């Protein structure tokens, strides 16, 4: 058994060609998922049972089932229904990329909404009382007091979720998408060299992860500048 370095040199550029798709899945699902998460959060903290309960059920289902199952239900399962095939969404839902983005969005939305809720719960009660005492409305308190502080508190957990989302994009390869993992699997099928290919792919993902961590570290430092005593 030998370790074929030349194979790595050949394959890495091929896998990196898939980076565009990986990034597209990551960024689009990330942004849409964040918007969904904010909606779910507002439903959860609204105090109205007819908003809170459905949100809780949604979050429970999407956090309690494997993301692979969610992807398969959307990609393989939805075409079972005529209504879907005849709807305006069909062009999106027919494509594996569209399905992958939808599944990843619905999934990350559930996780991120709980992360945001954790941030909201971390805002000190006294600050809300000071806002009330000054006469601020609920909406004003949420926008000017809760949201800025909760965002900073939620950031570490959120950065972990972004990294999770990156890793989940690899599952797109199971529904024929040629992202980095998809390309890698094709190469391995041809060359029978799992160690070389998969290990170098792992390194690529790790570099990506490192980059995301550094980025969020910088954001955390910027947002947290009011928590340091020196001027």
């Amino acid at each position, binding site marked *: 058994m030998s370790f074929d370095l030349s194979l790595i040199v050949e394959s890495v550029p091929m896998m990196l060609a898939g980076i565009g798709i990986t990034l597209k899945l990551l960024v689009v699902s990330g942004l849409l998922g964040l918007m969904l998460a904010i909606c779910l959060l507002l439903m959860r903290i609204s105090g109205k049972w007819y908003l809170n309960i459905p949100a809780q059920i949604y979050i429970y289902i999407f956090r309690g*089932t494997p993301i*692979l199952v969610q992807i398969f239900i959307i990609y393989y399962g939805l075409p079972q229904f005529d209504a879907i095939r005849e709807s305006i969404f069909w062009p999106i839902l027919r494509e594996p990329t569209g399905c992958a983005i939808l599944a990843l969005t619905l999934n990350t939305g559930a996780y991120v909404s709980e992360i945001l809720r954790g941030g909201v719960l971390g805002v000190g009660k006294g600050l809300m009382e000071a806002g009330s005492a000054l006469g601020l409305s609920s909406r004003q308190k949420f926008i000017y007091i809760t949201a800025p502080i909760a965002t900073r508190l939620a950031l570490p957990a959120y950065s972990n979720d972004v990294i999770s989302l990156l*890793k989940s994009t690899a599952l797109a390869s199971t529904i024929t998408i040629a992202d980095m993992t998809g390309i890698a699997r094709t190469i391995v099928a041809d060359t029978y060299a799992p160690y070389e290919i998969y290990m170098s792919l792992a390194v690529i993902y790790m570099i990506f992860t490192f980059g995301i961590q550094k980025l969020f570290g910088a954001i955390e430092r910027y947002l947290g500048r009011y928590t340091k005593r020196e001027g």
Partner: protein
Amino acid sequence: MDALIGWWDDYFWGAVIVGKVFLCSLSLMITFGLLGAMAKLSNSRIAQNLAGIYTVVFRGTPPILIILLFYFGSAITLTAIAQIIDPEIKFVDVPPFWAGTIAIAVLVGSYATETFRGAFLGVNPGSIEAARALGMSNLQTFIYVRIPEMWRLALPPFGNHMLSLIKDTALISIIGLNETMFVAKQAITVTGQPFTMYIVVGAIYLGFSTVVTVVVMGVEKFGERTTVGAL
């Protein structure tokens, strides 16, 4: 719904496999997690660095990739070793059950390392000092003071690790493990109802998640009965 008749048996046995994977990977995950945590907390630079590499590598790589690597990689390695012993052997492979179980245990173990490490560090130093002052040995301090406080701190994130193990089991279907996803695939070729079949898979996993969540809540209550309200 009638499509499901005749498949309940298969789904049941698929679910049993999920349970088996969970139990095996759970014990391995705890082992890897504890070893990693102790390595990180030890005085040995080498141990710390090795554990550091362990956590960085396995937290930065997509789970599906780790499973593929363990499965195909182990096959290549074992075949190579077997051919040294007996050149007649064409192919040795590891059953998907074991390749997958060990893969997810190692993977989630890297997260557990951080959780256990944090929990050990979170133990009140005052309690340790008190134990020493009373003359308790290191081992006694570890068993009667450190561990009781530590598992209570680790429990909430540990619950999440257990949920990760359950959900990652679905990924092992990709390398041929005949758990519920696999059953669904077969059922679809016969019944042509992918949505129904994958929804059942989702429901089974949701059931497992719920059970784990409820059990963790119960254990948390058990842990709290002596510590909450102590003030």
